[in-house]
């Protein structure tokens, strides 16, 4: 009886060892697989989080005298950004799309300047462009850059004071606000002022415009130009009128003054 008990114990132990070894092996293998999958999930999440944490803004954008884009961006996030490519679409012309490779990194809190200066893609200040910057993580920033004659703008002209005595100066102020939707940036704002005196009045320009031009006006920004004219006249009530624009009727504004 003692012998048989010993034998059954050995046999049972062998089976138990086989079962335990199989179970341990399977659990270990499963844990390894789960670990690999977990690593993949973490890696994927990290990529997605990094992509979401990328943040950069247009610091300035203009078309330089050499006929090239000159864009500066600021990395306002907390991760380094690699700008890989810039797409350029001339919306003034038909089917004009181009791109060029940048591959330049910008650290958090830093600026990346002169984007577009070394590009073979030229730019004409009279045209409007749709630009898109692409990062290595797949984020993009799209904005338009163009002359102020593409769409109507909020403009206002003020003659100060409206009633002026003879041999006094009037200040003429021309406000231009970039109220276009989305990331529409305006370039090369050069105002033209035209004044007409009626009756006994005469107008003599003393100086202006100040400043002569704005090379860049971001979305929501306002450009202010100033002129000063000397008014002379003999008949109170005689009027003089001024109108200003940025080279097209979509940006025109006018005002009227009188001799006191």
């Amino acid at each position, binding site marked *: 009886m003692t012998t*048989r008990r010993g*034998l059954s114990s050995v*046999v049972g132990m*062998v*089976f138990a060892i*086989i079962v335990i070894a*199989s179970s341990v092996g*399977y659990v270990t*293998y499963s844990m390894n*697989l789960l670990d*690999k*999958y977990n690593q*993949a*999930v973490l*890696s*994927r999440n990290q*990529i997605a989080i990094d*992509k979401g944490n990328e943040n950069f803004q247009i610091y300035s954008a203009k078309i330089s005298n050499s006929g090239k884009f000159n864009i500066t961006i600021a990395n306002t996030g907390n991760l380094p950004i690699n700008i*890989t*490519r810039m*797409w350029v*679409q001339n*919306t003034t012309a*038909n*089917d*004009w*799309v181009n*791109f060029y490779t940048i591959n330049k990194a910008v650290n958090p809190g830093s600026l990346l300047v002169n984007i577009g200066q070394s590009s073979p893609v030229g730019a004409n200040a009279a045209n409007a462009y749709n630009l*898109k910057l*692409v990062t*290595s*993580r*797949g984020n*993009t920033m799209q904005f338009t850059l163009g002359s102020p004659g593409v769409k109507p703008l909020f403009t206002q002209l003020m003659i100060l004071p409206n009633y002026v005595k003879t041999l006094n100066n009037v200040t003429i102020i021309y406000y231009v606000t970039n109220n276009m939707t989305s990331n529409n940036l305006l370039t090369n704002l050069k105002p033209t002022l035209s004044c007409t005196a009626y009756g006994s009045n005469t107008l003599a320009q003393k100086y202006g415009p100040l400043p002569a031009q704005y090379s860049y006006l971001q979305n929501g920004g306002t450009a202010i130009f100033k002129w000063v004219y000397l008014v002379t006249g003999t008949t109170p009530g005689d009027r003089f009128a001024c109108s200003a624009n940025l080279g097209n009727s979509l940006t025109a504004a006018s005002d009227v003054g009188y001799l006191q």
Partner: protein
Amino acid sequence: MNLFERKHLALSTVVATALMLGAVAVLGSTLVAWSNTNLRAYETSLASSSSDKTNKFNEFLTIENVWFCRLNCPHSSLPGMNITMTNVGNIGLNVTQIKLINSSKINVYSISNGAIIPGTSYMWYNNNYDWKSQVPISIYVTTNRGTIFATQVTPP
């Protein structure tokens, strides 16, 4: 009498033990072999499935840019469109199909040369796609692992 009985008992015990051990050995070996085969097959299947799912999960494609042309399209006088895709993940992928859906039609295009290694782009140009201005187009890009990346664009 007692001596004779003891001899018989000893013989039957030995035979029974031998038979039992033999049976257990055969049954045990068969069971272990069967289990091993099954486990190997299951392990291979699990490894393959896990690898597929992990790779699929790691695919990361962005549709970087889409542009349209009508009058001065490259290499064609017909209207067309260009889709630029960039692999921003850490494994290679293979674009096998691009589907374009707008309000009136569905176009499915098979891609045979859409392999994209990480960090590079693939530009797909369709030189005969009659898009309509301001009519949105849904773009579905499918990879060989079955991942679908989608975006929507509106022609100018």
